[in-house]
Protein backbone atom coordinates (compact mmCIF):
# COMPACT_ATOMS: atom_id res chain seq x y z
CA UNK A 1 0.00 0.00 0.00
CA UNK A 2 2.71 2.35 0.98
CA UNK A 3 4.44 1.45 -2.25
CA UNK A 4 1.34 2.30 -4.25
CA UNK A 5 1.09 5.72 -2.66
CA UNK A 6 4.72 6.39 -3.34
CA UNK A 7 4.36 5.22 -6.88
CA UNK A 8 1.49 7.58 -7.53
CA UNK A 9 3.13 10.61 -6.08
CA UNK A 10 6.41 9.66 -7.63
CA UNK A 11 5.11 9.11 -11.13
CA UNK A 12 6.51 12.33 -12.38
CA UNK A 13 9.83 11.69 -10.74
CA UNK A 14 9.86 8.18 -12.16
CA UNK A 15 9.20 9.44 -15.65
CA UNK A 16 12.14 11.78 -15.29
CA UNK A 17 14.26 8.99 -13.87
CA UNK A 18 13.21 6.75 -16.71
CA UNK A 19 14.44 9.23 -19.23
CA UNK A 20 17.72 9.43 -17.35
CA UNK A 21 18.04 5.66 -17.15
CA UNK A 22 17.38 5.34 -20.84
CA UNK A 23 20.18 7.71 -21.64
CA UNK A 24 22.54 6.19 -19.10
CA UNK A 25 21.45 2.74 -20.19
CA UNK A 26 22.40 3.49 -23.75
CA UNK A 27 26.01 3.33 -22.66
CA UNK A 28 25.65 -0.09 -21.13
CA UNK A 29 23.04 -1.51 -23.40
CA UNK A 30 25.35 -4.02 -24.97
CA UNK A 31 26.39 -6.95 -22.87
CA UNK A 32 30.08 -6.62 -22.20
CA UNK A 33 30.15 -2.84 -22.37
CA UNK A 34 31.52 -2.56 -18.86
CA UNK A 35 34.57 -4.60 -19.75
CA UNK A 36 37.62 -2.34 -19.62
CA UNK A 37 39.67 -2.14 -22.82
CA UNK A 38 42.90 -2.44 -20.83
CA UNK A 39 41.86 -5.60 -18.96
CA UNK A 40 42.67 -9.18 -19.90
CA UNK A 41 38.93 -9.67 -20.38
CA UNK A 42 39.01 -7.36 -23.39
CA UNK A 43 41.18 -9.91 -25.17
CA UNK A 44 38.96 -12.85 -24.26
CA UNK A 45 35.77 -13.87 -26.01
CA UNK A 46 33.65 -14.86 -23.04
CA UNK A 47 33.25 -14.57 -19.32
CA UNK A 48 33.56 -17.70 -17.19
CA UNK A 49 29.87 -18.36 -17.88
CA UNK A 50 27.70 -16.95 -20.65
CA UNK A 51 27.95 -13.21 -20.20
CA UNK A 52 24.22 -12.65 -20.00
CA UNK A 53 24.05 -15.20 -17.20
CA UNK A 54 26.99 -13.61 -15.40
CA UNK A 55 25.38 -10.21 -15.54
CA UNK A 56 22.38 -11.49 -13.65
CA UNK A 57 23.92 -14.11 -11.43
CA UNK A 58 27.58 -13.35 -10.79
CA UNK A 59 27.03 -12.82 -7.08
CA UNK A 60 25.41 -16.26 -6.71
CA UNK A 61 28.33 -17.75 -8.57
CA UNK A 62 30.87 -16.02 -6.33
CA UNK A 63 29.05 -16.82 -3.14
CA UNK A 64 28.88 -20.48 -4.05
CA UNK A 65 32.58 -20.43 -4.79
CA UNK A 66 33.23 -18.80 -1.44
CA UNK A 67 31.98 -21.76 0.54
CA UNK A 68 33.57 -24.23 -1.84
CA UNK A 69 36.90 -22.58 -1.12
CA UNK A 70 36.64 -21.83 2.56
CA UNK A 71 35.21 -25.21 3.59
CA UNK A 72 36.23 -27.48 0.74
CA UNK A 73 39.67 -26.08 0.00
CA UNK A 74 38.93 -25.86 -3.73
CA UNK A 75 40.32 -22.52 -4.82
CA UNK A 76 41.59 -22.72 -8.37
CA UNK A 77 38.31 -22.98 -10.18
CA UNK A 78 37.01 -20.53 -12.72
CA UNK A 79 34.49 -18.91 -10.36
CA UNK A 80 37.07 -17.67 -7.90
CA UNK A 81 36.82 -14.03 -6.90
CA UNK A 82 40.56 -13.74 -7.31
CA UNK A 83 39.98 -14.87 -10.89
CA UNK A 84 37.37 -12.17 -11.55
CA UNK A 85 39.81 -9.55 -10.35
CA UNK A 86 42.67 -10.99 -12.34
CA UNK A 87 40.79 -10.98 -15.63
CA UNK A 88 38.71 -7.84 -15.18
CA UNK A 89 41.23 -5.50 -13.59
CA UNK A 90 42.15 -2.53 -15.76
CA UNK A 91 45.64 -1.13 -16.29
CA UNK A 92 46.88 2.43 -16.69
CA UNK A 93 49.29 3.53 -19.43
CA UNK A 94 52.31 2.49 -17.41
CA UNK A 95 50.93 -1.02 -16.98
CA UNK A 96 49.99 -0.58 -13.34
CA UNK A 97 46.78 -2.37 -12.33
CA UNK A 98 43.92 -0.12 -11.20
CA UNK A 99 41.79 -1.26 -8.28
CA UNK A 100 38.63 -3.00 -9.58
CA UNK A 101 36.60 -1.23 -6.92
CA UNK A 102 37.80 2.28 -7.73
CA UNK A 103 35.34 4.65 -9.27
CA UNK A 104 34.74 3.84 -12.91
CA UNK A 105 36.58 0.51 -12.76
CA UNK A 106 34.89 -2.72 -13.73
CA UNK A 107 33.14 -3.87 -10.55
CA UNK A 108 32.23 -0.44 -9.28
CA UNK A 109 31.19 1.23 -12.53
CA UNK A 110 28.24 -1.08 -12.85
CA UNK A 111 27.56 -1.31 -9.12
CA UNK A 112 27.43 2.45 -8.80
CA UNK A 113 25.07 2.55 -11.74
CA UNK A 114 22.87 -0.17 -10.21
CA UNK A 115 23.21 1.25 -6.66
CA UNK A 116 24.79 -1.91 -5.29
CA UNK A 117 27.05 -1.66 -2.29
CA UNK A 118 29.22 -4.50 -1.24
CA UNK A 119 32.05 -4.87 1.26
CA UNK A 120 33.95 -7.73 -0.31
CA UNK A 121 36.88 -5.50 -1.16
CA UNK A 122 37.34 -4.47 2.47
CA UNK A 123 39.22 -7.75 2.69
CA UNK A 124 39.77 -9.00 -0.82
CA UNK A 125 42.62 -7.60 -2.88
CA UNK A 126 41.42 -5.32 -5.67
CA UNK A 127 44.46 -5.85 -7.86
CA UNK A 128 46.22 -9.15 -8.55
CA UNK A 129 49.02 -9.16 -5.99
CA UNK A 130 50.48 -11.99 -3.99
CA UNK A 131 48.25 -14.52 -5.62
CA UNK A 132 47.81 -17.98 -4.30
CA UNK A 133 50.61 -20.46 -4.38
CA UNK A 134 51.25 -21.27 -8.01
CA UNK A 135 52.98 -24.15 -9.70
CA UNK A 136 56.27 -22.36 -10.27
CA UNK A 137 56.69 -21.46 -6.64
CA UNK A 138 55.50 -24.88 -5.58
CA UNK A 139 58.21 -26.42 -7.74
CA UNK A 140 60.75 -24.04 -6.26
CA UNK A 141 59.86 -25.02 -2.73
CA UNK A 142 59.24 -28.66 -3.37
CA UNK A 143 62.83 -29.65 -2.87
CA UNK A 144 62.96 -27.83 0.44
CA UNK A 145 60.20 -30.05 1.68
CA UNK A 146 62.03 -33.17 0.61
CA UNK A 147 65.26 -32.08 2.23
CA UNK A 148 63.33 -31.30 5.33
CA UNK A 149 61.74 -34.71 5.31
CA UNK A 150 65.04 -36.46 4.86
CA UNK A 151 66.69 -34.40 7.57
CA UNK A 152 63.82 -34.80 9.96
CA UNK A 153 63.79 -38.52 9.44
CA UNK A 154 67.44 -38.72 10.39
CA UNK A 155 70.28 -40.46 8.58
CA UNK A 156 69.24 -44.01 9.43
CA UNK A 157 65.57 -43.72 8.57
CA UNK A 158 64.45 -44.76 5.08
CA UNK A 159 64.49 -41.75 2.77
CA UNK A 160 61.14 -40.13 2.41
CA UNK A 161 61.43 -39.85 -1.35
CA UNK A 162 61.99 -43.53 -1.91
CA UNK A 163 59.34 -44.51 0.58
CA UNK A 164 56.66 -42.44 -1.00
CA UNK A 165 57.19 -42.95 -4.69
CA UNK A 166 56.11 -46.56 -4.80
Amino acid at each position, binding site marked *: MAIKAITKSGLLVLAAAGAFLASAGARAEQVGDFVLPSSKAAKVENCVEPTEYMRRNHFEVIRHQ*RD*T*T*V*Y*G*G*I*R*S*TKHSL*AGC*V*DCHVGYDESGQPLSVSDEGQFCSACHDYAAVTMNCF*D*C*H*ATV*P*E*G*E*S*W*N*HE*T*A*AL*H*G*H*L*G*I*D*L*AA*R*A*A*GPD*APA*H*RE*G*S*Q*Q
Partner: protein
Amino acid sequence: MKPDKEKIDNGRRSFIGAAAGVSAAVVAPGVVLHTVDATAAPRTEPVTDLHRWGMLIDTSKCADGCSACVSACDRENGLNLQSKPLGDDPLKWDNQRAVWIRKVKLQDNTTGRITNLPLMCQHCENPPCVDVCPTGASFKRADGLVLVDRHTCIGCRYCMMACPYKARSFIHEKVDQKLTRAPRGKGCVESCTLCVHRLDEGDISTACADACNAEGHQAIVFGDLNDPDGPLRQALRQVPSRQIRQDLGLNTGVRYSGI
Protein backbone atom coordinates in the same frame (compact mmCIF):
# COMPACT_ATOMS: atom_id res chain seq x y z
CA MET B 1 48.12 -37.09 34.62
CA LYS B 2 44.59 -38.31 35.16
CA PRO B 3 43.97 -41.87 34.03
CA ASP B 4 40.77 -40.96 32.18
CA LYS B 5 42.73 -38.58 29.91
CA GLU B 6 45.04 -41.44 29.14
CA LYS B 7 42.08 -43.54 28.12
CA ILE B 8 40.81 -40.93 25.67
CA ASP B 9 44.22 -40.61 24.12
CA ASN B 10 44.67 -44.33 23.73
CA GLY B 11 41.34 -44.70 22.03
CA ARG B 12 42.23 -41.96 19.65
CA ARG B 13 45.62 -43.36 18.92
CA SER B 14 44.30 -46.74 17.94
CA PHE B 15 41.65 -45.08 15.82
CA ILE B 16 44.22 -43.07 13.93
CA GLY B 17 46.31 -46.21 13.60
CA ALA B 18 43.44 -48.05 11.98
CA ALA B 19 42.52 -45.14 9.76
CA ALA B 20 46.11 -44.69 8.67
CA GLY B 21 46.18 -48.27 7.42
CA VAL B 22 43.26 -47.56 5.16
CA SER B 23 44.50 -44.19 4.04
CA ALA B 24 48.11 -45.05 3.36
CA ALA B 25 47.41 -46.07 -0.23
CA VAL B 26 45.27 -43.01 -0.84
CA VAL B 27 47.77 -40.71 0.79
CA ALA B 28 50.63 -41.91 -1.38
CA PRO B 29 49.59 -39.91 -4.47
CA GLY B 30 49.51 -36.78 -2.32
CA VAL B 31 53.04 -37.45 -1.17
CA VAL B 32 54.19 -38.07 -4.71
CA LEU B 33 52.74 -34.68 -5.62
CA HIS B 34 55.11 -33.28 -3.11
CA THR B 35 58.20 -34.96 -4.47
CA VAL B 36 57.42 -34.77 -8.18
CA ASP B 37 56.90 -31.05 -8.44
CA ALA B 38 55.84 -30.89 -12.07
CA THR B 39 52.60 -32.64 -11.20
CA ALA B 40 51.76 -30.47 -8.20
CA ALA B 41 48.08 -29.85 -8.73
CA PRO B 42 45.44 -27.71 -7.10
CA ARG B 43 42.70 -29.75 -5.52
CA THR B 44 39.42 -30.37 -7.30
CA GLU B 45 37.69 -32.42 -4.61
CA PRO B 46 36.71 -31.10 -1.17
CA VAL B 47 39.18 -31.82 1.61
CA THR B 48 38.62 -34.98 3.62
CA ASP B 49 39.79 -36.32 6.96
CA LEU B 50 42.25 -38.65 5.24
CA HIS B 51 44.83 -36.02 6.09
CA ARG B 52 45.33 -34.21 9.33
CA TRP B 53 47.91 -31.48 9.02
CA GLY B 54 50.24 -30.70 11.86
CA MET B 55 53.75 -29.82 12.91
CA LEU B 56 56.54 -30.93 15.14
CA ILE B 57 58.61 -28.13 16.60
CA ASP B 58 61.96 -29.10 18.02
CA THR B 59 62.58 -26.41 20.61
CA SER B 60 66.21 -27.46 21.00
CA LYS B 61 66.78 -26.25 17.42
CA CYS B 62 64.79 -23.04 17.82
CA ALA B 63 67.39 -20.29 18.09
CA ASP B 64 67.30 -17.48 20.61
CA GLY B 65 66.79 -14.16 18.86
CA CYS B 66 65.78 -15.68 15.53
CA SER B 67 62.37 -14.64 14.22
CA ALA B 68 62.61 -15.96 10.67
CA CYS B 69 59.37 -17.91 11.02
CA VAL B 70 57.48 -14.88 12.27
CA SER B 71 58.59 -12.59 9.49
CA ALA B 72 58.04 -15.28 6.85
CA CYS B 73 54.50 -15.72 8.16
CA ASP B 74 53.99 -11.96 8.06
CA ARG B 75 55.13 -11.78 4.45
CA GLU B 76 53.17 -14.82 3.36
CA ASN B 77 49.92 -13.51 4.75
CA GLY B 78 50.39 -9.80 4.23
CA LEU B 79 50.65 -9.06 7.95
CA ASN B 80 53.74 -6.98 7.20
CA LEU B 81 51.56 -4.63 5.18
CA GLN B 82 49.77 -3.34 8.26
CA SER B 83 51.02 -0.11 9.71
CA LYS B 84 50.35 1.80 12.86
CA PRO B 85 47.37 4.11 12.40
CA LEU B 86 48.38 7.74 12.58
CA GLY B 87 48.37 9.02 16.13
CA ASP B 88 47.94 5.60 17.67
CA ASP B 89 49.88 4.87 20.83
CA PRO B 90 52.86 2.68 19.85
CA LEU B 91 52.35 0.45 22.86
CA LYS B 92 48.69 -0.08 22.05
CA TRP B 93 49.59 -0.85 18.46
CA ASP B 94 52.20 -3.33 19.58
CA ASN B 95 49.59 -5.11 21.67
CA GLN B 96 46.92 -5.05 19.03
CA ARG B 97 48.63 -5.67 15.71
CA ALA B 98 47.84 -9.03 14.22
CA VAL B 99 50.38 -11.77 14.85
CA TRP B 100 49.90 -15.35 13.83
CA ILE B 101 53.14 -16.69 15.30
CA ARG B 102 54.69 -15.49 18.52
CA LYS B 103 58.18 -16.32 19.64
CA VAL B 104 57.94 -17.37 23.27
CA LYS B 105 60.85 -17.66 25.66
CA LEU B 106 60.48 -19.95 28.64
CA GLN B 107 62.76 -19.94 31.63
CA ASP B 108 62.81 -22.66 34.23
CA ASN B 109 63.28 -20.73 37.45
CA THR B 110 64.94 -23.61 39.27
CA THR B 111 67.46 -24.62 36.64
CA GLY B 112 67.69 -21.36 34.75
CA ARG B 113 67.32 -23.26 31.46
CA ILE B 114 65.88 -21.12 28.67
CA THR B 115 63.74 -22.56 25.90
CA ASN B 116 62.58 -20.73 22.78
CA LEU B 117 59.59 -21.75 20.77
CA PRO B 118 57.22 -20.38 18.15
CA LEU B 119 53.60 -20.50 19.31
CA MET B 120 50.76 -20.33 16.83
CA CYS B 121 47.31 -21.83 16.43
CA GLN B 122 47.73 -25.41 17.60
CA HIS B 123 44.98 -26.72 15.32
CA CYS B 124 43.31 -28.73 18.07
CA GLU B 125 41.19 -31.75 17.34
CA ASN B 126 38.77 -30.43 19.99
CA PRO B 127 39.14 -26.68 19.52
CA PRO B 128 37.63 -24.52 22.30
CA CYS B 129 37.40 -21.60 19.84
CA VAL B 130 34.96 -23.59 17.74
CA ASP B 131 32.86 -24.54 20.78
CA VAL B 132 32.27 -20.95 21.81
CA CYS B 133 31.70 -19.34 18.40
CA PRO B 134 28.10 -18.06 18.21
CA THR B 135 27.94 -17.97 14.41
CA GLY B 136 29.87 -21.06 13.40
CA ALA B 137 32.53 -18.89 11.80
CA SER B 138 35.26 -20.54 13.84
CA PHE B 139 35.38 -24.00 12.38
CA LYS B 140 37.51 -27.06 11.93
CA ARG B 141 38.05 -28.08 8.35
CA ALA B 142 37.85 -31.77 7.52
CA ASP B 143 41.62 -32.01 7.25
CA GLY B 144 42.13 -30.69 10.76
CA LEU B 145 42.82 -27.01 10.07
CA VAL B 146 41.13 -24.72 12.55
CA LEU B 147 40.06 -21.61 10.62
CA VAL B 148 37.84 -18.55 10.79
CA ASP B 149 35.29 -18.11 8.04
CA ARG B 150 35.56 -14.37 7.92
CA HIS B 151 32.38 -14.10 5.92
CA THR B 152 30.40 -15.16 8.97
CA CYS B 153 32.67 -13.84 11.74
CA ILE B 154 30.98 -11.01 13.63
CA GLY B 155 34.08 -10.06 15.58
CA CYS B 156 32.77 -10.95 19.04
CA ARG B 157 36.16 -12.35 20.08
CA TYR B 158 34.79 -15.16 22.25
CA CYS B 159 37.23 -17.45 20.49
CA MET B 160 40.14 -15.29 21.53
CA MET B 161 39.05 -15.65 25.14
CA ALA B 162 38.62 -19.39 24.80
CA CYS B 163 41.98 -20.10 23.17
CA PRO B 164 44.51 -21.29 25.74
CA TYR B 165 47.36 -20.39 23.37
CA LYS B 166 46.48 -16.75 22.73
CA ALA B 167 46.77 -17.65 19.07
CA ARG B 168 44.16 -15.36 17.56
CA SER B 169 44.21 -11.70 16.63
CA PHE B 170 41.42 -9.24 16.08
CA ILE B 171 41.76 -6.64 13.37
CA HIS B 172 40.99 -3.26 14.84
CA GLU B 173 41.77 -1.09 11.87
CA LYS B 174 40.92 -0.88 8.22
CA VAL B 175 43.31 -2.95 6.14
CA ASP B 176 44.52 -0.92 3.19
CA GLN B 177 46.87 -3.39 1.63
CA LYS B 178 46.25 -7.07 1.32
CA LEU B 179 47.37 -9.98 -0.77
CA THR B 180 45.13 -11.94 -3.09
CA ARG B 181 46.00 -15.18 -1.32
CA ALA B 182 45.20 -13.83 2.14
CA PRO B 183 42.17 -11.56 2.28
CA ARG B 184 41.84 -9.80 5.62
CA GLY B 185 39.88 -6.90 6.97
CA LYS B 186 38.67 -4.92 9.93
CA GLY B 187 36.29 -6.46 12.42
CA CYS B 188 37.28 -10.09 12.12
CA VAL B 189 39.37 -12.51 14.09
CA GLU B 190 42.17 -14.35 12.33
CA SER B 191 44.96 -16.78 13.08
CA CYS B 192 47.43 -19.22 11.56
CA THR B 193 45.91 -21.19 8.68
CA LEU B 194 48.86 -23.55 8.26
CA CYS B 195 49.27 -21.79 4.92
CA VAL B 196 46.01 -23.26 3.68
CA HIS B 197 46.41 -21.54 0.32
CA ARG B 198 49.58 -23.54 -0.26
CA LEU B 199 48.10 -26.84 0.87
CA ASP B 200 45.11 -26.47 -1.42
CA GLU B 201 47.39 -25.89 -4.38
CA GLY B 202 49.19 -29.14 -3.68
CA ASP B 203 52.24 -27.66 -2.01
CA ILE B 204 52.90 -29.43 1.26
CA SER B 205 54.82 -26.76 3.14
CA THR B 206 54.34 -23.69 5.27
CA ALA B 207 56.11 -20.36 5.11
CA CYS B 208 57.42 -20.73 8.67
CA ALA B 209 58.88 -24.19 8.11
CA ASP B 210 60.51 -23.08 4.86
CA ALA B 211 62.03 -20.02 6.53
CA CYS B 212 63.31 -22.01 9.48
CA ASN B 213 64.92 -24.42 7.02
CA ALA B 214 66.44 -21.62 5.02
CA GLU B 215 68.04 -20.35 8.22
CA GLY B 216 69.52 -23.80 8.69
CA HIS B 217 67.70 -24.48 11.96
CA GLN B 218 65.19 -27.08 10.77
CA ALA B 219 63.20 -26.71 13.96
CA ILE B 220 59.81 -27.06 12.25
CA VAL B 221 58.61 -30.20 10.49
CA PHE B 222 55.30 -29.82 8.74
CA GLY B 223 53.29 -32.78 7.53
CA ASP B 224 50.37 -35.13 7.73
CA LEU B 225 49.67 -36.64 11.14
CA ASN B 226 47.68 -39.40 9.45
CA ASP B 227 50.44 -40.54 7.11
CA PRO B 228 52.50 -43.12 9.00
CA ASP B 229 55.39 -42.91 6.51
CA GLY B 230 55.29 -39.15 6.07
CA PRO B 231 58.02 -36.84 7.33
CA LEU B 232 55.99 -35.66 10.30
CA ARG B 233 55.17 -39.08 11.66
CA GLN B 234 58.74 -40.21 11.06
CA ALA B 235 60.01 -37.25 13.04
CA LEU B 236 57.45 -37.82 15.78
CA ARG B 237 58.56 -41.44 16.08
CA GLN B 238 62.16 -40.39 16.62
CA VAL B 239 61.88 -37.83 19.39
CA PRO B 240 59.71 -37.59 22.48
CA SER B 241 57.19 -34.80 22.02
CA ARG B 242 54.27 -33.32 23.87
CA GLN B 243 51.42 -30.92 23.47
CA ILE B 244 51.40 -27.60 25.23
CA ARG B 245 48.69 -27.83 27.88
CA GLN B 246 48.32 -31.51 27.18
CA ASP B 247 46.17 -31.62 30.33
CA LEU B 248 43.33 -29.89 28.46
CA GLY B 249 42.87 -32.92 26.22
CA LEU B 250 42.60 -30.83 23.05
CA ASN B 251 44.78 -33.15 20.98
CA THR B 252 46.70 -30.42 19.24
CA GLY B 253 48.01 -30.77 15.70
CA VAL B 254 51.18 -28.90 16.65
CA ARG B 255 53.57 -30.86 18.87
CA TYR B 256 56.73 -29.76 20.64
CA SER B 257 59.84 -31.64 21.60
CA GLY B 258 62.37 -30.54 24.18
CA ILE B 259 59.89 -28.93 26.56
